[in-house]
C-alpha cells in the first residue's frame, strides 16, 4: 500500500515534504516493474533541478529508468547508501530506499502532484 502522507507523480516518484525539504524516491509499483535494481546513478548535491528534469537513473538487469524531479529546487542531499546497496530500492522503497532531498524553490508546485488514492487509481488505469 502506498503511504497516505506522500505525494506521487505519473512517473512513479514519491515525495515526502517536511518544511522546505522534499525527500524523493520511487514507488513500490515502480520498483516491481523494474525488477532487481543493480545500480543507481545519483546526482551531485548542489545541482539545480527544474520540475520534470531527469536527475537520477535507476538500473535493473533488463531495464533502466530515469528519475524525474517532481518539483524544482536544489538537490541538498543524496542517499549514498544506494551506491553499495541499490537493492534498498527494492526492499524498502519508501524509507531506506529514498534517493535524494530537494530544497524546494516553489512549494506551490506540490499542488500538481497526486495523493495516494489518486496514484492508486492511476496505476490501476495503467
Amino acid at each position, binding site marked *: 500500500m502506498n503511504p497516505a502522507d506522500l505525494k506521487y507523480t505519473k512517473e512513479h516518484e514519491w515525495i515526502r515534504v517536511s518544511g522546505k525539504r522534499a525527500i524523493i524516491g520511487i514507488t513500490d509499483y515502480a520498483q516491481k516493474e523494474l525488477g532487481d535494481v*543493480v*545500480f543507481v*546513478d545519483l546526482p551531485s548535491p548542489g545541482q539545480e533541478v527544474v520540475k520534470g528534469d531527469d536527475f537520477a537513473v535507476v*538500473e535493473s538487469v*533488463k*531495464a*533502466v529508468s*530515469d528519475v524525474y524531479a517532481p518539483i524544482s529546487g536544489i538537490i541538498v542531499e543524496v542517499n549514498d547508501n544506494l551506491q553499495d546497496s541499490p537493492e534498498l530500492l527494492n526492499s524498502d522503497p519508501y524509507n531506506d530506499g529514498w534517493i535524494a532531498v530537494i530544497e524546494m524553490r516553489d512549494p506551490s508546485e506540490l499542488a500538481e502532484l497526486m495523493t495516494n488514492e489518486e496514484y492508486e487509481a492511476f496505476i490501476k488505469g495503467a
Partner: protein
Amino acid sequence: MAFIANTPADQAEMLAAIGVAEIAELFADIPASLRLTRELNLPAPEAEPILLKNLKSLAARNISAGEAVVFLGAGTYDHYVPSVVGHILGRSEFYTAYTPYQAEISQGTLQAIYEYQTMICNLTGLDVSNASLYDGATAVVEAVLMATGATRRCKVVVSAGLNPEYRRVLATYCDFLDLQLVVGLLSEGEPSAEQLHDLVDEQTAAVIVQYPNFFGQIEAGIEQLAEVAHAKGALLICAANPIALGLLKPPGELGVDIACGEGQALGNRMAFGGPHLGYLACREQYLRRMPGRIVGATTDASGKRGYVLTLQAREQHIRRQKATSNICSNQALNALAATVYLSLLGPQGLAQVAEHSVQKAHYLYNQLLQIEGISPGLPGPFFHEFTVRVKANPEELFSRLVEYGILGPLPLARYYPELSDLVLFCVTEQRTKEELDYLVKVLGGLL
C-alpha cells in the same frame, strides 16, 4: 543449390501447409510496382572449383607480406601469428556463433571475452576493459565520447603524434557530434607531451597522446601531462601499442584514465586494414560510461561459476536514444585471436617479441645512418618504428623499392606536409638480419 536444402517436393509440401499455391504469393504484400521483373545484373554464378580458382588468381594480383620484405607499420604490424591462433579461430563453434545473448549456450565465447578483458587490464594497468571495439581509430573516438560525457565538456586536445588515421576518424566524429578538436602542433618537427600543457583549459574534456607515438618515439612527460589534465578536470587518454606494453610501463601507472588503441598486433593478420580490434580499458570510476559489450562472472542456480553479458542497461537495446553508445557488437573473433596469442606468448614471449622488434629496429637505424643520403629524423628514444631523412623523393623511393620486393618505408608528407623528406620505418621481430642488410644494400645503391 548447395546452400538451400529445400527440394521442389519440400517446397510443395510447405506451400500446402501454408495454404498457398506458389512462392510468389508469399510476396503479395510487396506492391506490384516494386517487384523486380528482371533478374539482377550480376556475374553468372560460379561453382566452387571455378570460384576458388578465380579468387586465387585475384589474390595473386596482390603482393602479400610473405612475398616481400615489409617495413610498413603506422598502426598495422607484421608480427608473426602463431599457427595455433588460426586453428582456434577456425573452430566454427566460435566463428558461426552470434553475440552471446543466451549465456547458457555461449559460455565459450563469454569466458574467452572475460579472459581477454583480464589480459587487457593487466597489460594497460587499468581497472576495467570492455569486450573490444571496431578498431584503434574508433576506440579513440569512443574514449573521447566517454570523456566528454563524464566531464560534460566538448573540447578535445590531441597530440600531433597521434596516428593521423585515428585523427582523421576523430575529426569526422567531432564534426558531426559538435565537439571541438584541437591538434597540438609539431614543435620543431617533434610532438611532445609538454607542448600540450598550454592547450588544456577548463573546457577540455580530454587530452590524447600515443605511446609510443606515430613516429615510434617514446615521449617523456606523459605523467606530467596527466597532472596538468587532471588539474583542469580533464581526462588523459592514451593510445598505446599493446606489444610495447610487454616492456614499457603500463598507461595506468602514468596517470592515464583511459587506454585504448589498435589490438591487431596481438595475433591478427594485417588483412588490408581489417577486421581488427580496438581495445579500451579505463579506471573503475568510468565503468558505466564504457561503450560496447562487457562480460562479467557470476554463478548459476547451483552456485557454479559462469559468465554473462553484464551492465547491459547502458546499451542501445534497452536505453535506445539515451544509450552510452550505439555500438551493439564487438570484434569477438579478433579479440579471441588476441587472447589466444597472449596465452601462447605469456609475459616472457610478449617481452621477447617486443625486445626483438626493438633491437632489430635499432640495428637497422644504425645501419641506415651509414648511408650517405640518410640522416637522423625526429630525435629521442624510439620503439620499433623510427623516422629518417632521405635525400630523395620519398614517394618515388616508395615506388622504386617495390621493384626490389620491399614494401615501405612510409613517406610522412602524406600526413605531415612539413615533414617532406622524412620516412617512417617499422621493424618487427619477423625481419631477419639478412633482410635488414638487404634493405641497407638496396638503399645504398639508390641514394
